[in-house]
């Protein structure tokens, strides 16, 4: 065996072990979700899948309004993503391609908002929501998140490099106004960037926890994350029930991630190296 082959085998082996450890919690979740609680509590524990998944899921549906929470989460994630894609790309396109008085100052303000920590605003935000009557309302999750500095900043760089001025000039010659140029000319070119920002926003909105916990906790409109946390708090020792709910709650997002993973991971990496 040559030294380089030995290094390669060692490297490959370590990577495989690391991947097994990384994926083990998912496997263990599936094992617990498909067994009964007493199976899980045996020593040594049962390490293989059981046949009780559907019994466990039936218990979940009897204990919490799982589909109601799922629907709320889907509404919040989809609405936030659509609004963010529209507002962020429109603002980014404008910053990248148009000159207007105050442009640089306004963009500087946008960058400065990065340093504002979320918990500084949390209590007053809560009282604003109370004043608006939005406590426990999905609007409280969607509206404040409808446009963000990160997306505009990231999209602006993409616009600057992906949208040639000639293309926009040609659109203007053809009589396109500002908004038509954005909608018919810029948006189709921006599709790869929209795909990344869309998946990113969707995942963040889906997994968001602290703010929904604060604003939704006493309401009947729970999101999936808050419902899961309550399920764990109330039925903590009933592992099979809690794990079946947990498994079902992470599946939709894993599917979304696996569909977009190649593109998504590539963009995460590129962003870090360029930035």
């Amino acid at each position, binding site marked *: 065996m040559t030294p380089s082959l030995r290094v390669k085998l060692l490297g490959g082996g370590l990577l495989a072990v*690391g991947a097994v450890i990384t*994926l083990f919690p998912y496997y263990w979740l599936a094992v617990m979700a498909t067994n009964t609680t007493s199976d899980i509590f045996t020593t040594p524990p049962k390490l293989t899948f059981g046949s009780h998944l559907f019994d466990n899921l039936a218990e979940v549906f009897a204990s919490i309004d799982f589909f109601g929470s799922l629907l709320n989460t889907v509404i919040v994630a989809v609405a936030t993503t659509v609004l963010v894609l529209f507002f962020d790309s429109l603002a980014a396109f404008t910053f990248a391609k148009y000159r207007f008085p105050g442009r640089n100052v306004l963009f500087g303000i946008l960058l400065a908002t990065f340093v504002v920590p979320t918990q500084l605003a949390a*209590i007053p935000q809560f009282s604003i929501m109370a004043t608006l009557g939005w406590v426990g309302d999905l609007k409280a999750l969607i509206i404040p998140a409808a446009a963000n500095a990160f997306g505009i900043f990231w999209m602006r760089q993409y616009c600057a490099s992906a949208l040639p001025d000639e293309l926009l000039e040609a659109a203007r010659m053809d009589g396109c106004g*500002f*908004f038509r140029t954005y909608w018919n000319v810029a948006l189709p070119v921006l599709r790869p960037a929209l795909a990344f920002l869309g998946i990113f926003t969707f995942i963040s909105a889906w997994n968001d*926890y602290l703010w929904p916990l604060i604003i939704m906790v006493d309401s009947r409109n729970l999101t999936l*994350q808050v419902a*899961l946390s309550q399920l764990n708090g109330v039925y903590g020792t009933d592992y099979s029930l809690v794990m079946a709910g947990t498994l079902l709650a992470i599946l939709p997002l894993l599917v979304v991630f696996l569909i977009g993973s190649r593109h998504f991971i590539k963009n995460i990496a590129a962003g870090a190296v360029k930035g």
Partner: protein
Amino acid sequence: MTDLLPRKAPSAPAVAQVPQRRRFRHLPQYLAISPFYILFLVFGAYPVFYSLYLALHRWDGIGPMQWIGLDNFALLVTDAEFWNAIGNTFIIWVMSTVPMTVLALLIALGLNSSIRFKGLYRIAYFMPNVTSVVAMAIVFSSVFSTEFGILNSFLSAIGLDPVGWLTDPWGIKVAISVMIIWRWVGYNAIIFLAGLQAIPADIYEAARIDGAGPVQTFFRVTLPLLRPVMLFSVVMSAINGMQVFTEAQVLVGDRGGVQDAGTTMVLYFYNMAFLENDFGYGAAIAWGIFVVVVIFAIINWRLIQRPERAEVSR
């Protein structure tokens, strides 16, 4: 006259001779960027200033506000629980960031070599980063469970004593750190990998010709060239590390477990503001966290600056 940015700067500034009737010609652009600024004013800027005002009051969120001046801040600087939360946050940050960076670098080096299934490995390692923290904290709380946890079963099987992961102050910190490592190691490996791939091959070739071995090449060529990417990674982990909340809250509960060992700064803020309904003191804690984060950022920035200056002066 065009609204588009000219590719080359025009010889004369076009803006200077704008006729009065075209004063509103930029209206579409201002409208286009306005949503972010309106939302920020309402849900960002106004709340931040209002929280400073709140911090000077006693308020339970329902009754009338009572002006108490700087009392909340005086209480904050002597509040042992707040200092404990600061300590916990930094201990957990170090205990997670150091192993995570080393592991991520090893994984990145592995992924950068010519092995099979690279694409699958990348997806596998990245998956924890996009999975719900609440969901996986529930899974980890079972893994770390003292009596029925798989980890203690494994330790018993290889002849070691079980550890009270979620019932011992240090066990709690280890459990939270392990979860953070698990969640972020793949993300950082992907970033390091991108950094490795950006290093031009002829630099390695030059090092080889100069007679550098693999170890020497790694420490003298690879690591220095990875510096910008590693700085990005450390800055990101510092930003995220100061905000740790979900792992602690789900693993050991609202109160942070035994001896408040899992109470992070944000968890303490959440407790005081939204469980004790002490909005005035909660606002003061939020400002306290902000000050800690700013000081930490300045220290970070100093540490990052110094080696660069040394390089320049050499």
